[in-house]
């Protein structure tokens, strides 16, 4: 079909740290080079920050480079990290505090800040707009615009006003638009749905290890001022997870008597009965955690998958006409559990490469080899190289031995131990059959520290227009009941942190796989973990999804 179109020099998909840093850098460099440069950012959330969810302890290295005067510009970095406490939780009650000297260096946070990444993105968006970037929240990039030569020429935004059968709604149908660009940057975050297609189409992962993921579930709490210690960072490993089903937790003391608390569960977990959501709920009852939360009030809830494969899993980041940046590529540093500064840096490097390319008269549509080169020469590459073994070691050797390896690698070799560990088994292939896995009896939520899924989703302010095509597509609609249910007791019921997937027993006794797409918090876990790789996460109508404040 013939669509309306607009032309820009650069189109960026996603207003997260990578996309917004790229946008700012493009404009800064264009001014330096005396070039006119049009930059457009589309964002599927209803506003910038609405879909941003991160811990977050933030390392300001990339921000220092992007806006050296960020303090004067009022960047929301208000809470410097004061202390790092790390605990190994041995059971639901016991814990050992890890002495400082035994902690891998990458887990030290002097000079870093506890922030809301959503608020940092809101601020970055203001800076970008001040620099002349056009940002359009509420518009989802539905697909890449790829020409007959296989060159990415921009994106197509999603149609609005389409009913659940895919038919245009009377008086409401608003067709999507082509946003054409010389170069298109994809900054959708972890498991971006276009990024996934591009990686497949251009075989960008041909020389990379399988990507690895975690699901991070996070809550924001307002706690008793007497229990609050602004600047305190707490990390835990161990209970309620284990080597077969690994992960770790965080609890950060922000300003205003608020803390964020979260659990990251490795999506390589093997027990299909495991429910990351319920693990997180029970984890909050551990004395180490409840000492802070007791008497407090939960304010917000959300979840998001993270890419943690690091350098070994990093795909080729360029293709004709564009590049993947940030977590869409997978630049998170798992040894530090930080991806914001790395995402920002990758966006800035791509932006610099684009301005450079346009300055020498390139007309777009080609590969940004100079981005790859600049990446390899940057501190970002060095950092990721040093951390390349961290996740694989934990996965291969478990928390204790893997932790020891990481201590030796990070503290004695500075990450340059002369061997590289590979972990090539994709997360979706890690589940064991339900029959061979112990059932897990999760405690009932108490309504004070722990809660059920639906009241949690309630706090994510999630909504989708009700009458629209289901954005969670099954390649084969029979697989959930015919295969996943008998084999794995359909794990989607449990790995989804928003209660989107249910097995409903009907009056006749027949079972039905129900998808409550309206609840979806856009974490992408289903797309990653479904053992049959049968679920495709598509963008719903723009503005749909969570509306996170301060996350």
């Amino acid at each position: 079909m013939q669509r309306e179109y607009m032309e820009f020099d650069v189109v960026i998909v996603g207003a997260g740290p990578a996309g917004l840093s790229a946008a700012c850098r493009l404009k800064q460099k264009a001014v330096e080079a005396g070039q006119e440069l049009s930059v457009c950012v589309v964002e599927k959330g209803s506003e910038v920050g609405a879909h941003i969810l991160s811990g977050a302890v933030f390392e300001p290295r990339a921000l220092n480079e992007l806006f050296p005067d960020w303090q004067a510009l009022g960047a929301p970095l208000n809470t410097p990290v004061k202390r790092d406490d790390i605990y190994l939780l041995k059971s639901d009650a016991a814990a050992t505090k890890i002495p400082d000297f035994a902690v891998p260096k990458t887990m030290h946070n002097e000079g870093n800040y506890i922030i809301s990444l959503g608020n940092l993105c809101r601020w970055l968006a203001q800076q970008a707009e001040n620099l002349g970037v056009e940002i359009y929240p509420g518009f989802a990039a539905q697909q890449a615009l790829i020409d007959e030569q296989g060159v990415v020429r921009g994106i197509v935004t999603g149609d609005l006003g389409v009913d659940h059968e895919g038919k245009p709604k009377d008086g409401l149908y608003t067709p999507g638009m082509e946003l054409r660009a010389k170069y298109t940057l994809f900054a959708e975050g972890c498991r971006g749905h276009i990024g996934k297609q591009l990686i497949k189409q251009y075989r960008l992962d041909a020389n990379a290890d399988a990507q690895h993921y975690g699901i991070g579930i996070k809550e924001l709490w307002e706690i008793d001022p007497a229990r609050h210690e602004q600047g305190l960072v707490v990390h835990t490993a161990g209970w309620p997870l284990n080597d077969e089903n690994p992960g770790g937790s965080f609890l950060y003391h922000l300003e205003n008597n608020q803390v964020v608390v979260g659990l990251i569960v490795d999506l390589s977990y093997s027990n299909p009965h495991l429910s990351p959501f319920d693990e997180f709920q029970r984890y909050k009852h551990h004395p180490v955690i409840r000492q802070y939360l007791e008497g407090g009030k939960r304010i917000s809830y959300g979840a998001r998958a993270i890419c943690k494969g690091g350098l070994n899993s990093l795909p080729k980041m360029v293709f004709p006409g564009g590049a993947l940046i940030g977590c869409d590529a997978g630049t998170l540093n798992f040894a530090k559990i930080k991806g914001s500064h790395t995402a920002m840096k990758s966006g800035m490097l791509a932006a610099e490469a684009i301005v450079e390319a346009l300055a020498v008269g390139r007309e777009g549509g080609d590969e940004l080899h100079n981005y790859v080169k600049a990446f390899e020469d940057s501190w970002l590459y060095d950092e990721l190289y040093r951390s390349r073994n961290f996740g694989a070691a934990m996965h291969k050797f478990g928390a204790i031995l893997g932790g020891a390896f990481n201590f030796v690698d990070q503290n004695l070799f500075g990450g340059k131990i002369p061997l590289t560990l590979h972990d090539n088994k994709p997360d979706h292939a890690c589940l064991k059959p339900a029959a061979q896995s112990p059932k897990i009896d999760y405690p009932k939520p108490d309504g004070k520290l722990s809660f059920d899924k639906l009241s949690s989703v309630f706090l994510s302010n999630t909504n989708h227009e009700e009458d629209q095509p289901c954005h969670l597509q099954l390649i084969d609609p029979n697989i959930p009941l015919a295969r996943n249910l008998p084999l794995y007791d359909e794990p989607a019921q449990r790995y989804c942190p928003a209660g989107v997937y249910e097995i409903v027993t009907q009056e006749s006794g027949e079972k039905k796989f129900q998808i409550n797409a309206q609840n979806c918090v856009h974490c992408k876990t289903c797309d990653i973990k479904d053992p049959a790789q049968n679920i495709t996460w598509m963008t719903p109508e723009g503005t749909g999804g969570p509306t996170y404040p301060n996350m």
Partner: protein
Amino acid sequence: MAILVIAEHNNAALAAATLNTVAAAAQIGGDVHVLVAGSGCAAVAEAAAKVAGVAKVLVADNAAFAHQLPENLAPLIVELARNGYSHVLAPATTNGKNYLPRVAALLDVEQISEIVKVVSADTFQRPIYAGNAIATVQSSAAVKVITVRSTGFDPVAAEGGSAAIEAVGAACDAGVSSFVGEELAKSERPELTAAKVVISGGRGMQNGDNFALLYAVADKLGAAVGASRAAVDAGFVPNDLQVGQTGKIVAPQLYIAVGISGAIQHLAGMKDSKVIVAINKDEEAPIFQVADYGLVADLFEAVPELTAQLG
């Protein structure tokens, strides 16, 4: 000083919401006068005179007030209010909400909308943000103009008083508006958000056909039928029946939740109901934590029995 309550009526009968409004006036303290403005509304005035606690009934019987058009009614109330009333109260019905702000503006005061509690003669509580917060507000106005949410106040007795009836008000047709017609859905089911009784079904209904059980009860009670999102998502009923966070917000006198677990998304749409009844076979269902009356039972037995007992 006295308090003026504007009666809600249809020229034939006094509407029950007036009794809740008189109750709010009684809590403020002072003589309660009731204004019956209408056309051919003598019976209403007589009914108002019998309401417990009413000291005086003012009747403005004139064709200009037949449909209580705000353009005509507001000047009448303003004139009365200026002559010695400390408060003017009206029920927060669509009618009261229509004319009373017009009165407030003409008196150069803010209206205090939909109070649910009287703290003192000048301080009131009212829900804001769709009931997600309760504001305590204080008015410095010479005449306090207030609409009253009926679920916040138990009605006074309709009988027992013997107030004097006094005619007031000259004809006052502002000449800018006129009544064209009215379609009252008398025989049909009331609109969900306006219904005094709502009966809703959840996923426990099993399918759309079983909603017929609820319609049978609704017919007996003059109730509207609603549904939880789970029932809508399961395809039992269309989305316009949905009560809850992403559906309609209702606050009826009686809300009957049938086969609804009571997720917070649903509670957000009905928690301000005056009386909540839950019928569910799962005694652990969260709906019982908010229900005034809970019945742990198989709905397929209990609901037909309820229909039968309602005669």
